[in-house]
């Protein structure tokens, strides 16, 4: 866990003749939360998928590099070892016919962890993710767990990998407000305790307000604005940012808006 800084440099993704991500660069340091925000289709998920070499069929990375502590690194060496991922829909991220324990073993096997360390590492990760009774949980199938539990389980698997960075793609979008808050509290705690560097992909400015230090606003495949979170809310400069913040604040009719 000694890596300190991750740089995405000039990432570009095409689908056929269409450019979907157009030269996105960002820096993520240990212990910070960077939010990548924008409307659906703005290219935020594709940017991360390209960095991890996990682009969906029909799209191709056309350029860009990822640097780790100042040296280029191949996507497949990044994925799982340096960067763990948490996805939006926990139900589709798990194999429905395999138990949580099977998933945990698969994760550790893929990372080349020695078998004698598996049990301790999985139990610790589950407890860090706020899941008590690890032994009972490991025997459960995904359908026996609620959406909130599955999302915690996905975070636990990310923790078990001991990767220093986490890409969280809409981690709370499919959860109710109570589970949302719990998961965001959990991510905030992991950043504090382990210095996890988190890239948070979201369209929800409430999530940004809760967790982010810095914000990148994407539109049409490009980063249109990049600033500390306070500046994004206080002085949004780009029209897209202003629209996002205004729509968000309109949900808080009693909140004072002018600084």
């Amino acid at each position, binding site marked *: 866990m000694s890596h300190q800084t991750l740089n995405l440099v000039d990432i570009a993704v095409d689908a056929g003749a269409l450019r979907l991500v157009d030269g996105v660069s960002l820096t993520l340091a240990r212990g910070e939360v960077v939010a990548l925000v924008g409307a*659906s289709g703005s290219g935020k998920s594709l940017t991360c998928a390209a960095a991890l070499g996990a682009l969906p069929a029909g799209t191709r990375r056309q350029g860009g590099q990822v640097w780790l502590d100042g040296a280029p690194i191949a996507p497949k060496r990044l994925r799982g070892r340096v960067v763990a991922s948490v996805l939006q829909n926990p139900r589709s991220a798990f194999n429905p016919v395999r138990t949580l324990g099977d998933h945990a073993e698969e994760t550790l096997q893929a990372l080349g962890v020695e078998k004698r360390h598996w049990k301790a590492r999985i139990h610790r990760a589950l407890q860090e993710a706020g899941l008590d009774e690890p032994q009972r949980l490991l025997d459960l199938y995904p359908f026996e767990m*609620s*959406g909130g539990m599955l999302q915690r389980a996905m975070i636990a698997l990310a923790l078990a990998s001991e990767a220093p960075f986490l890409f969280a793609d809409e981690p709370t979008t499919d959860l109710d407000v*109570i589970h949302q808050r719990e998961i965001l509290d959990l991510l905030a705690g992991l950043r504090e305790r382990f210095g996890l560097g988190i890239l948070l992909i979201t*369209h929800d400015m409430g999530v*940004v307000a*809760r967790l982010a230090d810095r914000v990148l606003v994407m539109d049409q495949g490009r980063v249109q604005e990049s600033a500390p979170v306070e500046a994004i809310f206080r002085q949004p400069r780009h029209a897209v940012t202003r629209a996002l913040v205004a729509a968000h604040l309109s949900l808080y009719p009693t909140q004072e808006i002018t600084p």
Partner: protein
Amino acid sequence: MSLLSARGVHHHYSRAALFRTRAATAVLEDVSLELQPGEIVGLLGRSGCGKSTLARLLTGLETPTRGEVLFEGAVLSRLDKARRRDFRRRVQMVFQDPQGAVNPRLTIGEIVREPLIHLTELPRAHHAERIAELLERAGLDASMAHRYPFELSGGELQRVCIARALASNPALIVLDEAVSNLDLHLQLQMLDLFATLSREQGVAFLFVTHDLRLVERVCSRVLVMERGRLVENAAVSTPLSLVSREGRALAEAVLPALPRRLTSARERLAPERVC
């Protein structure tokens, strides 16, 4: 007279196992409510509280284990054929997952036309015009009628489902987390559409959600559910103040409007004005 009401509704699902019957899980317990014409009522609760089940009972997709659902005072399960068709026309539902709610082999135009064919007397010659009008009402381009569901984004397809729900000029639309997956500006656009329909055409809405902010924005009344029971029935004011334990828990979990450093700066300036 109430448009739609529930009286002492209980519901449970018996979980069938191969060799034994597991204990039935109670999903709803003694739920009673009234929906009046033209009002927008929020049904607020966390996941698993039974709100979707209640929505399915109110729209006649399932029949309660005990108790009754009444449409304009008549028990739903005992409506004659003509009244049942009238109920189908006047009470519509939009689900959370649009991909699962449309036939992938039909064009968008055909999807919106289905209720026109089955539930209205509108002559076929007027269908295309009506479909275009409905799509535009839902914020979509009328030319979309020729495309297929897989060509649309989730947000576009959800608005197609909303256009379809509007097709039969319903008196009530039940929205089961129907805007949750849209980008916020589209959510707000749909909420404004619902408010306009309620105001101008007297359409009532039952808005099922876990997000108190949306209830506060569009609803005139809110029902709070906890573990299969209604625990609060309150008029919506700004700011919305709920008194039940569950209502307060849902209010407390609302995401912050501003980053903490901005909020705390403001608290120093005007502590009493910050919620």
